[in-house]
């Protein structure tokens, strides 16, 4: 099946391109905070509803 290799190459190109684009956009500049921030998302929603009730 000779078309599988071109597909694999296109996929590779797509992901490498995406990686380059994201790096240049600064997505990987801060590798520390997002992993903490992710944990907070739910809590923040809870507080906002609490404040809304008050």
């Amino acid at each position, binding site marked *: 099946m000779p078309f599988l*290799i071109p597909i*694999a*190459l296109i996929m*590779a190109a797509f*992901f*490498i391109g995406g*990686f*380059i684009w994201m*790096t*240049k956009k*600064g997505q*990987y*500049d*801060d*590798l*520390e*905070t997002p992993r*903490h*921030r992710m*944990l*907070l998302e739910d*809590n*923040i929603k*809870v*507080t906002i509803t609490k*404040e809304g009730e*008050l």
Partner: protein
Amino acid sequence: MNPCIHCDQDVVTAYFSEDDRTEGPFCCRGCLTVYNVIHAKGLSEYYEIKKNVSFFKKRAPVEIKTAQYSFLDDKDFLKEYSYQSLNNERTMEFYLEGIHCLACLWIIEKLPEFIPGIRSSKLNMSRSVVSIVLKPEGKFSIVAHELENLGYHPHALKMNQDSQDFKTKEERSSLLRIGIAGAAAGNIMLYAVSLYAGAGPEYATYFNFLTVAFAIPVLTYSAFPFYRNSYIALKNKSLSIDVPISLALIMGGVMGVYNMFNGINENYFDSLSALVFLLLMSRYFLKAIQEMGLGTTDLHFFYQGESVLKVDEHDSERFLEIHPKFIQVNDLLKIAPMQIIPADATVVSGETYLNNSLLTGESELQKVGINADVYSGTMNMGSEIIIKVKKINKETRLGQILRSIENGWGHKSKIIDITNLISKYFVGIVFLLSVALFIWSYREGNTKHALEQALTLLIVTCPCALAIATPLTFIRTLSKSAQKGIIIKDDSVIEKLSRVKNVFIDKTGTITQNTLKISSFYVLQNSAVAPHDVIFNLERHSTHPLAVSLKNYIKPLPTKPLMVSDLKEVPGVGVSGIIDNHLYEIRNHSIFEDHKVICTFEAKDTIRLDAKEAIAQLRHHNVNIQILSGDKAEYVSAIAYEAGLEENEYQSGLSPENKSQIIKDSEHSLMIGDGANDAIALSYADTGIAVFGAMDISLRAADVYLSLPGLIPVAELITISKETMKVIYRNLVLSLFYNSISVVLAFTGYISPLTAAIIMPLSSLSVLISTLIGTKKLRILWK
């Protein structure tokens, strides 16, 4: 007792909330204040989040300062420190003291919800920097003030610093190099495995071409740092581990391309690209971990304080709050008690006591009056003074110390680290072996085959396992040490520390705690008002160190507020006041009632709790220990005796220059210190360790910083270094063992891309396991 609920530090004297006595305990009034502010703003969830995070990141108790930050709204200041976007929104960055966990992130990023005028607030936890975007109507002074109230002391950072941009750029490109190497290595593997498994001739040429295509960006773009480092090394007529790596990469590239054009479907690109990927990764992580400790580089402003009050030129009754950066010669500045003097100056009015210990190491306070010279970096311990600025920034004595630190860094004895030393011999041996192999094969007649074999030898003997294992070992040691509160700036420190012979320790603030404590307190006569009530009422507002230690001394005793009339504090003498028609005075280490002594006391600087134990542990390492102090001999000898040191193990009355000279004259030196007076010595020592609570300058001068109180970590660090070096030597032996196998295989003609694809990962894997296992002592210390 439970730890402080705000900062998790141990509580010495407990404070409780005034409305609800069950809320607490707090270690100090600062933490209590912050707790109340957080509650009043409806942010109590902070404490819920904090409960669920690990406790290893303890924060320091909060110290509430009273700066107003009005200078933040100043036009000149905004121009230099903030960035204005097209819709008139301003962005400013602040370094925050006291960021320690998830709960801080939560509260900082909620700022826009309770401070009017903030568009957004984003915290970078690894740098402790918050970036605040302000709507046109907002004010940075309000933001800074609120941050202060929440217990995060803010320092405005200059925006768009070129160095910061450069760093971001470097970081991004190293990530790109890693990503591209990883992706290419993965894809090459796909086709290489097919080739090894025996892909049919209709595919083989096609696959081989694909591996070459993927290898080109790896060998050019990703591997560029190796070529650059090799070039620098060769230009300096030295060799580094990057030279044999570059050699293998270039040879592999040349051979692969050559084979492709000659219809031979064989190359080493699978091994080589995986090698580049692993090498770049290990170096990236080592750098990342080192930079965690380097965070202090931005913070050069710490020693100046964050704002000063300048007397208005047109109206001497008015004071302007300015940033220390904008101080000019001949400015009149008002220096409040407990403030650090930001420039070299002379006193124009007022009288006070200065703590010079940061510059001279003397623990005794210096009395200064009108016309006396005062120096940048000293702290005002008495009452308010007005000073006239004589010298600023680099011209000050402190500035000169800073400059000699920079020189000291240049003079630091450079060790040739073990991997580079090995590579020196390694390159030579491999070259000789390749030539030998070429001649050996040439005798059999086939020039092409002989050349091919010699090239193969150069490729497969690449010391990759060693180059990967060494950074990995250091990463492990650096990160584990950081968890124990030992921040190491540079991995070469570990090798230097493993050989340490002479240990020099500063006294004030290093062996001692640099706080006065009442050592004896004798009541000689009964008095109408009990001595502790006299102290409580007379010293209530005094910030003199002796007054503070007296107040701490009477804290556990019950005291009652009394009416005091005619309360006077005479700087340099003491306090006096009238209670119940009796004149009470506290002066000259005594308390007087109507001019009669009723009580005497002594105060002295106390030794750190673990100093004796730490010195005992240091002795196990067979090192010479010396106290170097700027203080008077009598104080030094008493402390030395208490710390368990002998008669000949201390030197007193040394100037900062004397100290650094002593250190320069000794080999394999380790200096432990804290103040600016130690900074030069720290920078000249082979290894400088700044203890917890050290000043920013010494942090910059030191190679290691202890972020938790105590001296025992120093002794532990020496053990850690020695054990880490053992692991490194073991990895060295392992990796040389694999290289010898490759050489034997090359000489017997059994080497091929397939054998290389087996041996190279195998050797990397075995050094990785060796690194993770560590040694018995390390396993115990890491627990």
